[in-house]
């Protein structure tokens, strides 16, 4: 039997961090493979307009930016396999990655699996996804033209979703469990000024009402416990993210929220394994910080491969 092919670096996840790692690795002459389960971009692929990634003065949509990052990395020889990783052995020599497209081997691994929207955890939530329950206003907002929608959350993404939906929907009702938004100041004035945005403070969604598709929500006041029914056509859930670290749990050290513990070197507790992008413990999760991680990971991997780490 022939020896299996061993890549210098396998990047798990094709978001901005992943493809930047692939770009730097390929340009450093490393034999590089990206494993991506669906498409380049990760969370960014569903972002309608990115205005805070420097160099695109008119903004750029996330999917196009992702495709360009992929094409750029591939121009220097990085490869992409559309594979779902089922299991990894990160301490083996070489490291082993079992996927839907076969088994791959690598000397170093960059874990760039990102994060996903956090769910409310209510009964029926999964079944109603796409039938009134949504997690991405930029993706699904157009379906609610002229309708009434609820946005749950109080952070930047909830505020951005409410603004976006207010331009499409007839009415937007923002439901937040506190009495003030956590979103940065820039959002407050436009939200308050919008004619068709209402606020339900100190409230949580207690129940999703449905007849096969969503018909409304039951709200509970967190102070009084009083429950009210709010008819609506859609509910956009924007209550933060959870890291995609199920795959590495038990091998890599995670913090209490499930993020991989790593500093700006991106090094994890296992030599030759790096945490890139939103999946890593860090104060700010943005495209610009994800791409920085990608570059740092390759720098550390080169040292490791040279035997210097």
């Amino acid at each position, binding site marked *: 039997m022939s020896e299996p092919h061993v890549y210098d670096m396998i990047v798990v996840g094709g978001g901005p961090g992943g493809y930047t790692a692939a770009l730097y690795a390929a340009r450093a002459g490393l034999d590089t493979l990206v494993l991506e389960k669906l498409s380049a971009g990760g969370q960014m*692929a569903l972002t309608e307009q990115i205005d805070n990634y420097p160099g695109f003065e008119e903004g750029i949509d996330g999917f196009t930016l992702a495709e360009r990052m992929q094409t750029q990395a591939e121009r220097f020889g990085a490869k992409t396999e559309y594979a779902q990783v089922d299991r990894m052995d990160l301490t083996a020599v070489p490291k082993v990655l079992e996927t839907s497209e076969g088994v791959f081997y690598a000397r170093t691994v960059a874990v760039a699996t990102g994060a996903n929207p956090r769910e409310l955890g209510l009964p029926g939530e999964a079944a109603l996804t796409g039938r009134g329950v949504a997690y991405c206003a930029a*993706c*699904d907002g157009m379906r609610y033209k002229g309708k009434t929608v609820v946005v749950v959350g109080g952070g930047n993404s909830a505020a951005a979703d409410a603004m976006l939906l207010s331009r499409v929907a007839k009415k937007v009702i923002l439901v937040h469990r506190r009495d003030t938004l956590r979103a940065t100041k820039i959002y407050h004035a436009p939200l308050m000024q919008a004619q068709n945005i209402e606020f339900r403070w100190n409230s949580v969604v207690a129940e999703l009402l449905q007849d096969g598709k969503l018909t409304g929500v039951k709200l509970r006041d967190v102070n009084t416990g009083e429950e009210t029914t709010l008819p609506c056509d859609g509910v956009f859930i924007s209550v933060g993210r959870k890291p995609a670290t199920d795959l590495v749990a038990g091998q890599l050290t995670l913090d209490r929220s499930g993020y991989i513990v790593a500093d700006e070197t991106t090094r994890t507790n296992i030599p030759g394994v790096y945490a890139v992008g939103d999946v890593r413990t860090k104060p700010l999760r943005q495209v610009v910080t994800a791409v920085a991680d990608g570059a740092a990971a390759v720098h550390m991997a080169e040292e490791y491969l040279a035997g210097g780490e």
Partner: protein
Amino acid sequence: MAALNISQEQFREMIQGDKPVLVDFWAPWCGYCRRIAPVYEKIAEEYGDRLTAVKLNIDEAEQVTEEEGVEVIPTLILYKNGKALDSVVNPGSKAAIDQFIREALEK
């Protein structure tokens, strides 16, 4: 072979055939649809000997979309001899599409 965009009329004719036809109900404004597009092209190539993969823009095929009961996009439906074998809504990975096709072809 690349996945071609077809019309309602082509849809009605194609699905009658003995060779299975995989239809991607999509729309240009749908973000999820864009995400599966590169993988769908790969599927069209990989399964080219066993099925024909096509795309139907629901904005240009309102009648068929309603007849087929497609309420959420992207929806993939596999047809053979005029019948829908199975469907999958908003698949999250190429692996999920692979599994859907494998199981639907056995029906």
